[in-house]
């Protein structure tokens, strides 16, 4: 074999798998075809690789449950979103109750379309509040010298069942036209404000709506509200 034909042989030999699987370019295909004409070794190798390919093509895939797989990925996305928002907004250490509750609060606020600026203010006021004022959380919140947050004043105080899901909370708040102003306090009391109308009648209607939910343990008006 001459030097030139030996280098041709090596080139063709390397290309054979991609001739076999049909992904070689036209010019590669042409040059290999030419070489095959004169080289029995390469012809035989191409035949062997074709056999190998056919043998490997047998489908041996396990059951692909895309729905279950997607559910797992979605959980991971959910779990990631809340802490990353928290990390941006509250780079300080949170107390235990806050670690437990804040992701929930953040998630609710996100669901309600509450702006992140508002969320930041709520977090700020919460961590600034004197922990001993837990049950008077709303009072503490109002007397802070912080800039006024663009949230309505709280008109309703409520306690929810610990088993209540996020979706249920969302539904209950939507049904009562309320939004979370602050919470939960260490005693698990949430302070809620009107999502729309802030009239006395609206507050009364909100209380009636809240009390129809079995997940609402307790709901009462705050201060001057009915």
């Amino acid at each position, binding site marked *: 074999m001459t030097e030139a034909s030996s280098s041709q042989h090596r080139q063709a030999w390397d290309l054979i798998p991609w001739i076999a699987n049909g*992904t070689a370019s036209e010019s590669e295909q042409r040059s290999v075809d030419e070489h095959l004409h004169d080289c029995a070794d390469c012809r035989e190798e191409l035949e062997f690789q074709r056999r190998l390919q056919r043998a490997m093509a047998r489908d041996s895939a396990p059951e692909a449950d895309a729905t279950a*797989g997607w559910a797992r*990925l979605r959980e991971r996305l959910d779990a990631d979103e809340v802490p990353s928002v928290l990390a941006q907004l509250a780079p300080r250490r949170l107390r235990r109750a806050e670690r437990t509750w804040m992701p929930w609060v953040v998630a609710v606020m996100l669901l309600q379309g509450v702006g992140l600026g508002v969320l930041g203010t709520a977090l700020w006021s919460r961590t600034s509040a004197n922990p001993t004022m837990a049950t008077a959380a709303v009072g503490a919140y109002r007397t802070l010298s912080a800039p006024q947050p663009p949230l309505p004043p709280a008109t309703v105080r409520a306690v929810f069942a610990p088993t209540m899901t996020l979706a249920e909370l969302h539904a209950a708040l939507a049904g009562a036209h309320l939004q979370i102003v602050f919470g939960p306090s260490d005693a698990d009391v949430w302070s809620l404000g009107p999502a729309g109308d802030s009239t006395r009648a609206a507050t009364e209607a909100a209380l009636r709506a809240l009390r129809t939910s079995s997940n609402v343990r307790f709901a009462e008006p705050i201060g001057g509200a009915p």
Partner: protein
Amino acid sequence: MTPRDDLHDRDLLRRIVARDRHALERLYRAYQPRLLQFLSRLCSQRDALDEAINDTFWTVWRKAEEFRGASRVSTWILGIAWRHALKALRRNGDIAVERLADTGASECQTADTLLNDERDQWLAQGMATLPLEQRATLELAYFVGHSCQEIADIMGCPINTVKARMFQARLKLRNLLPKLEGIENATALRGHQP
């Protein structure tokens, strides 16, 4: 994978960059079976496979904006899957392929399937002796059907490395699989390209 599919995939990626979860779900549902099919040829542990696929789409979600469009979306995703599979395999410490058990005993044992089972065993044993990179190269070429350049993109190595790995794998299988000759006529009836 036609150019039209790739256009569709690119559109999904753009929406993923804009944080559209529905787009991610569509991409996931389109690719999860394919990735599982490919990766299951390299590893028999289902947990490790699921983990690698989950990690793959996690990366797609976070890095979609880094897709430069030089390759097809399918190649890009397969490359991410390959890297995560390597990690998962190292973590789980098992790269043994045990496809032997796959050949169902309940199957009607005609002469052809007996012949195929025997061939599958030879093939599985032969493949199991190859280093992971060589095996993956072979699977990408013959099972998935990628070009040399695409395999280089997926595995993140030069084209010459792909050729060298393929060369080594072919040499070894040549010596290990003399039985592949002569009994493949029956396999042609059952084998198909996905």
